[in-house]
């Protein structure tokens, strides 16, 4: 399996490390290795048809600040210059336009390549088009890590819960908001909890994407389209963030044995991200940066899952599960 990695930030590097650590597994299961034949960051790329050393790529990126010596302007030209089987698209999310990630995914699918992505922008904006393109060109297109990081939710619904009628999914899909609200449970005011989240590296310097609920809304859109077969985009989501939550509100909720959490909810008729009152002890009343979800299906009833929603190895774990699924299908 020849892999092209588009995006070599935290997630791309984490995936390269996981590929290096699982070569024995790939040899044993498939009788061949997974070769990274090209890795692109935002300005440079490295390529080798015989395969690059994944750990060397990470080392170069961390020491030189770039993944390769070759610079580029047009990522499509780089992709066309490489023979590969699978694109792993992990460039930064752009929810307004889809960014270079959308361009790369579309081009790979048009060329008949399989694609794995955790990039929420293209999925939130162009899901039906991308799925249609993948079907038309008989490509595998998987995106488990785009919702909930290491928490398996999309493949759980598609594969393990196959045959169930899923009535609704409610969940905590943004670890940063959950961290802030958890800190507010302990008495910290919102602004202080936000600053702490930024210092811990959980929140960006411009935190709007997280605290206004946009990030969670993207994930709700992905779930709506992929699990419920709806045809919705980011603008269809009824979004309320957490920036107006006061210490008094958190205290009053606590006095009634409840916590406030930012919940994404999706069903055949609902598409919403908003702060909700959660009884203490409920599966969605978790604290810290964890993600959690409760899937309600007609036969199995409620199923609760939780896991780390972001992180280098955690997201790479989701990509690995997609990679194995594709390699199994292509065996």
């Amino acid at each position, binding site marked *: 399996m020849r892999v092209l990695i588009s995006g070599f930030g935290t997630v791309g590097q984490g995936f390269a490390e996981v590929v290096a650590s699982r070569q024995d597994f790939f040899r044993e299961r498939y009788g061949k290795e997974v070769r990274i034949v090209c890795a692109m960051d935002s300005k440079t790329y490295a390529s080798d048809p015989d395969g690059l050393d994944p750990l060397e790529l990470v080392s170069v990126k961390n020491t030189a600040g770039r993944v390769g010596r070759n610079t580029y302007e047009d990522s499509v030209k780089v992709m066309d210059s490489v023979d590969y089987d699978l694109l792993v698209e992990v460039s930064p999310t752009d929810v307004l336009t889809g960014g270079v990630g959308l361009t790369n995914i579309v081009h790979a699918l048009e060329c008949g390549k399989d694609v794995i992505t955790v990039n929420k922008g293209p999925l939130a904006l162009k899901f039906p088009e991308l799925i249609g393109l993948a079907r038309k060109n008989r490509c595998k297109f998987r995106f488990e890590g785009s919702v909930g990081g290491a928490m398996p939710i999309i493949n759980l619904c598609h594969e393990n819960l196959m045959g169930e009628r899923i009535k609704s999914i409610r969940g905590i899909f943004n670890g940063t908001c959950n961290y802030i609200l958890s800190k507010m449970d302990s008495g910290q005011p919102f602004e202080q909890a936000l600053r702490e989240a930024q210092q811990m590296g959980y929140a960006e310097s411009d935190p709007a994407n997280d605290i206004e609920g946009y990030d969670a809304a993207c994930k709700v859109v992905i779930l709506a389209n992929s699990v419920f077969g709806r045809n919705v985009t980011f603008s269809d989501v009824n979004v309320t963030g957490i920036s107006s939550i006061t210490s*008094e*509100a958190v205290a009053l909720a606590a006095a009634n044995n409840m916590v406030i959490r930012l919940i994404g909810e999706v069903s055949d008729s609902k598409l919403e991200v908003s702060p909700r009152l959660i009884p203490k002890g409920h599966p969605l009343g978790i604290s810290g940066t964890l993600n959690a979800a409760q899937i309600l299906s007609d036969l199995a009833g409620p199923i609760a899952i939780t896991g780390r929603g972001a992180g280098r190895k955690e997201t790479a774990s989701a990509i690995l599960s997609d990679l194995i699924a594709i390699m199994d299908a292509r065996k």
Partner: protein
Amino acid sequence: MLVNAELYVKDLPGQLVGSLEPISMVNGNIVGVVHNRDRIINHRICVNVTFEVDNNDDLEKLKNVWKARDVLIDSIGSVYKTASMEYLLLGLFNASYVEELIEKAAETVPFESVDVSYSTANHTKTRTAMITVEVLNEDDLDKLNLILEESCREEGIVYIRGL
């Protein structure tokens, strides 16, 4: 929802089973049955049954089946299990706003109970109110959600509801 119904069935063999069977047909669950043989009106015996159904639609289907089977419904709707929800309102409002809001909602949704508590903090102008309501069923809860959400949006009040 838990429902109690008082039915009158013909005093003939098989009529009792014939009145209970439709509950299973709508996926209901019978909690208890009392066959009041001492209450006979027009050759019909009173049957008091308590059962659970998922929603009002199933209850309506059940009522139609009973009517089709000539089972007379004397009374129905003694619902013991209610639906409850908590709401948190944040913003610039006073207690009379909340009272008026509840009165307005009560015109559409019959409440079983309403409880309101306020934050005790007084160093800011904004207030926080927790409203806990009990209504008859989930449909009423959906109506109430819409009323509160719309009203709060118009007034610029942050509205947080339970699960």
